[in-house]
């Protein structure tokens, strides 16, 4: 007997999905690759060897990775508090988590700059300690943490909510201490979800433009991110150069996300689907 599917017309729905994916995602990417190919492989390598480009790519990917890592730790804490504790204002707190999603990135960038500038609310105290955030790579990191934060919390929350309490109690009666319950029981079950959150936060931070350029100060070789270089190329009508840089970022992101997916699948090996 043929298996009944929920959506009618498998061929139709598959065709529709693939066409849609092609038009919305693959076509622009193909155009990007095509445009970049105008430069030739040598031109591309030459472009990527420019120290300024290299520095920008390093900042973009390094900053995004560090920001995603920070978000995983802080996001886990926040999600834990939101799910496990009942306190007045919890719902309000919960709603605030989404704000970085909703705020126009330029607004976020300006607000962060105002806060962290040497004469800002936070910046003046940090300046007194000799720490400069705005107009340095640290500013880039702050903006990247800000925009990526909701991803980790929102991916973790539903998983934390469905975590069985039984399992923790079982561990407790078996003699596990609290830190052992966390490290040996809860954390391993959250790792796949934490990786998903990490990947989302990372992708968002790599591509972030609006909020970063305000706080970064955009000093070449120091606090300049790769997307800014692309915009600058475009302003100089160097379309091929912009496309090449874009394609390089895309390829690097793809490899990174693929690696995370593989890691995630390995960490999820105990789930139902494995034979």
């Amino acid at each position, binding site marked *: 007997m043929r298996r009944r599917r929920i959506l009618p017309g498998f061929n139709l729905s598959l065709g529709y999905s693939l066409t849609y994916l092609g038009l919305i995602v693959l076509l622009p990417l193909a155009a990007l690759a095509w445009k970049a190919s105008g430069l030739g492989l040598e031109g591309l390598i030459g472009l990527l060897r420019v120290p300024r480009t290299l520095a920008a790519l390093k900042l973009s990917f390094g900053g995004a990775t560090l920001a995603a890592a920070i978000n995983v730790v802080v996001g886990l804490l926040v999600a834990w508090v939101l799910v496990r504790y009942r306190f007045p204002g919890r719902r309000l707190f919960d709603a605030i988590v989404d704000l970085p999603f909703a705020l126009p990135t330029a607004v976020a960038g300006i607000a962060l700059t105002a806060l962290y500038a040497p004469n800002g609310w936070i910046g003046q105290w940090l300046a007194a300690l000799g720490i400069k955030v705005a107009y340095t790579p640290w500013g880039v990191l702050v903006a990247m943490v800000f925009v990526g934060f909701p991803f980790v919390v929102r991916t973790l929350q539903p998983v934390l909510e469905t975590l*069985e309490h*039984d*399992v923790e*109690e*079982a*561990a*407790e*009666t*078996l*003699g*596990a*201490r609290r830190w*052992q319950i966390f490290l*040996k*029981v809860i954390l*391993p*079950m959250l790792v796949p979800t934490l990786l998903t959150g990490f990947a989302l936060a990372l992708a968002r931070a790599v591509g972030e433009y609006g909020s970063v350029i305000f706080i970064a100060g955009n000093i070449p070789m120091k606090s300049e991110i790769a997307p800014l270089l692309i915009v600058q190329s475009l302003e100089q009508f160097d379309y091929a150069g912009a496309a090449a840089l874009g394609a390089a970022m895309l390829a690097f992101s793809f490899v990174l996300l693929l690696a995370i997916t593989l890691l995630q699948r390995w960490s999820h*090996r*105990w*789930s*139902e689907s*494995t*034979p």
Partner: protein
Amino acid sequence: MTLELTRINRRFSDYPALNDVSLSIAPGEFLALLGPSGSGKTTLLRILAGLDYPESGRVEFNGKDFLAAAPRERNVGLVFQHYALFRHLTVAENVAFGLRVRSRRMRPKRAEIDARVEQLLKRVQLDGFGKRYPSQLSGGQRQRVALARALAVEPDLLLLDEPFGALDAQVRVALRRWLRRLHEELGLTTVFVTHDQEEALELADRIAVMNRGRIEQVGTPREIYQRPATPFVCEFIGKANRLALRREDERFVAGGWTFAADPWMGEHAQAIAYVRPEHLTLSTEPVPGAWRARLRHVYLAGSVAHLELDVAALDHALEADIAGEDLARMGLHAGDGLYVSPSHAVIFPLDRDGRPIAGDRWLWRAGMATTPTRLPLRRSEVELDAHRVDGGIQR
């Protein structure tokens, strides 16, 4: 290794989950906590495991204060209804968990742990499954892993919370027998929570029947079934026909049938009697004093036939069980007229408002002496029963 619970009280926001519960569990005993949902049986088990604490009362194990110890210090093995296995760990890692989390000083050597895991998996008939994940096992297998995991720490007390509740009927019966054998081999003091009376009657050495946070009766399965202490126990364990009795002179009557004598010497005007379906005697010939009944329906369930009888003199139908062969011999069919009389009954006196009076009952038997003697319940029963059943009457 006696486990002694004394006057335990536990309140949840607005209702008492446990109300003055006392219970004593002997070393090596297999005790079932039996009751409907919400009767407090799981709460009692969780208190023993250290996952919940009472507002008042004491729990002593071997004379030591159990409530002062953290769950991890109590050395109990707990098995949950929904297994609660660590799904990110293999079967072998699950079983080894309790040993691996020990401090370095207490932890056995790795080879020793492996050997013990293997031995336990063999014991629960899962050797060769060590490398699998829980998601690759059936429900019955998962529950056996949970049991092996609980046994790995060599507990002094094994607690089982509806361990077969999530399994289907066949697996449940097979696992039940297996668990009974395992208990006989290990001799571990075991407390077992269930709402399934059949399970409790078959498995347990003793049963504590719970209702609304109280223990109604503690006794062997036989005692619980044959000499129920309260109306609740009569209704909850097995099936029973409930009859309203009125006192007439020196006897109690129900629809023309006379329960000879009045053990309460005219103290109570009303009583209720519970008669098990197998304690109704049927006859096609007239019997003096018996109820006239009409057979409404026969449910033949294998070797036993359940008969539904309309009795004009009583306000409701009676259910009688007879052996399938007897049914064939008597040649009974729906619509036939019959004479029905009880052979045994448990009778509880009622106060003026129609409520049963706690602690008094009369085990009636057809043909017993006209003046029954009042006897106290067995001493152990009185001691163990938190809900005192003081002066029962029996022959």
